[in-house]
């Protein structure tokens, strides 16, 4: 099976007052048809910029995609014209963002937001579009669809608005949906409803999903594969099981250990990732995680480690010491448990 999305060596930069920010600094990964891939990582590590680059929505200036290929269904999105790209967005690739209020048009009714997409991308006539809109709203679990169609975004709750966003994203039978923090602004029980809905629909319609989130529980529940980002690069990638049960990068190990878990006995103290997030304008030639890394050695200052195979097939880490740190990691885990 060939990949639906194949991102190769993507570089996206921003020129800022403080200097050049390499927000995405050589990122490569694939997404298979129907698969859910999660992207996690520190705030500012380039998760959103990476996703916006796929959609070619980077504000220029100050931003620019400087290198790489984004193969979607075999075509390089970076070579398409703006007009062709607009066709792809909303038709082949759907989007769901954190704050639906900013992505929905406040002066259009819910019904119109959906029918507009259908008319624009599928040339549907008004009547067919309205029928389809009703169908989509039922599919995303909106009750009382007739009345809702005539309402405006501000008349809906946050959870409802997110359902509408999902309906818009699904309207033209996309092959891929990119969801950037889709439930961060929602309540725990509403978040659970929305995530279950997305999971159900992506399975049923065989839509691939890239989900960006801070919530490691959400990743564990919904993703088959995970990319962990730090300072503009993927530092670890693998199956969800490998990432959670056999992490091979010190940042991933520290991240997993820093969150308290409801299913485990209360710990006396949390075990944070020490130090501060990196300043992307001031990275040196060494490993970007080095100042916070408990395993750093001299070699780590000499070059930035490349993503290399480690552990099971399909598991990669960008750390000079990923193979040897397994033993140290397991000793530390036993100490914490004791």
């Amino acid at each position, binding site marked *: 099976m060939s990949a639906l999305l194949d991102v190769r060596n993507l570089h996206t930069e921003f020129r800022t007052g403080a200097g050049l920010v390499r927000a995405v600094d050589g990122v490569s990964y694939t997404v298979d048809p129907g698969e859910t891939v999660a992207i996690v990582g520190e705030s500012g590590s380039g998760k959103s910029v990476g996703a916006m680059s796929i959609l070619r929505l980077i504000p220029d200036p100050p931003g620019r995609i400087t290198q790489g290929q984004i193969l979607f269904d075999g075509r390089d999105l970076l070579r398409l014209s703006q007009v062709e790209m607009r066709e792809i967005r909303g038709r082949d690739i759907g989007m769901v963002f954190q704050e639906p209020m900013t992505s929905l048009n406040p002066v259009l009714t819910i019904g119109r937001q959906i029918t507009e997409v259908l008319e624009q991308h599928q040339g549907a006539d008004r009547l067919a579009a309205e029928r389809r809109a009703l169908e989509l709203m039922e599919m995303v679990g909106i009750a009382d669809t007739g009345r809702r169609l005539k309402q405006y975004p501000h008349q809906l709750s946050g959870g409802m608005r997110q359902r509408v966003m999902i309906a818009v994203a699904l309207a033209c039978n996309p092959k891929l949906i990119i969801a950037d923090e889709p439930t961060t602004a929602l309540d725990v029980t509403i978040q659970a409803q929305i995530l279950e809905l997305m999971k159900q629909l992506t399975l049923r319609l065989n839509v691939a999903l890239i989900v960006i989130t801070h919530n490691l529980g959400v990743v564990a529940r919904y993703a088959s594969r995970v990319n962990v980002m730090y300072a503009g690069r993927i530092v670890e990638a693998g199956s969800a099981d490998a990432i959670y049960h056999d992490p091979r990068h010190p940042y991933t190990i520290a991240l997993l250990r820093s969150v308290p878990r409801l*299913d485990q006995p209360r710990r006396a103290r949390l075990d944070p990732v020490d130090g501060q997030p990196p300043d992307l304008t001031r990275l040196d030639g060494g490993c970007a995680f080095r100042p916070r890394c408990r395993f750093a050695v001299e070699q780590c200052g000499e070059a930035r480690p490349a993503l290399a195979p480690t552990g099971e097939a399909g598991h990669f880490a960008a750390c000079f010491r990923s193979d040897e740190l397994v033993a140290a990691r397991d000793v530390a885990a036993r100490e914490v448990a004791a």
Partner: protein
Amino acid sequence: MSGDAVETPLLEVRGLAMHFPVSEGIVLSRKVGDVKAVDGVDFAIKRGETLGLVGESGCGKTTTGRCILRLERPSAGQILFDGQDISGLGRKDLVALRRRMQVIFQDPYSSLNPRMKVGDIIAEPIKVHGVEPDANRRRARVRELLSICGLDPKFADRYPHEMSGGQRQRVGIARALALDPEFIVCDEAVSALDVSIQAQVVNLLEDLRERFRLTYLFIAHDLSVVRHLCQRVVVMYLGRIVEMADCDELFDNPLHPYTQALLSAVPIPDPRVEATRDFRPAPGEVPSPINPPSGCVFHPRCPMAVEGCKRARPVLRELRPGHWVACSEVQ
């Protein structure tokens, strides 16, 4: 006070209510109802304790905190701080109270004045309350507060935008500590922070509690952080308390159907656990506090609801020692 006497709680609220008027019309505005943001809430916090306050958006957590801090004048009820009812205090008396109670907000970005240097931000309450008129000693105090909060004293000369989110939150904490308060309301104090930094700040809050014998009201929606940090937890739904218990008891043995729904909605960061977990999210939306459902406000979403739940408002009952539940169906 002798050791075996029952210690009076540092804070106690009785029948606390906060109703905001809702009006309609722009020219001739008339009142059409009330938002019952907080609708009859009772709880107490012991000295040195951290009480967690959880519940869905809009259930009245922040409003409860603001009433306690007397940033709002409650519509009804008593707020006893160190034995004194502060619910009706006027402006003058509140000044003295403000020194003893502080708040740490969610958003380290908007709660710090961007045009002030960090040192001045922290010194401001000291100046306003006239605690330390000497500028040199005030600067020394700022340096001390910064290092207590794990920041380099040199940060005093920086501006908030020159710091990371975690560092800014530490500045907010340093400012809250400036007047040696006894009680701090932490309103989503770690929610906006990145996971890796959140743990640092949680540890700091714990250290400070021990070091200065602080008492916290910890408002948060992240239940795993609440479980880690709190001794007791109050669960609110639509302005009312639905459950209250010691932390371990609440998480090990939740009795109210809403608490159960809330806890089961939290995904565990472990794919093996999630693969085997049976999980059906609670249906429905949180209703509007303007027109709350009759009887038990949770009944439209409740899997256990019976006819009677639509009629009578359940009272908070102590079903086990220290474990209070407002549900008529739970025995």
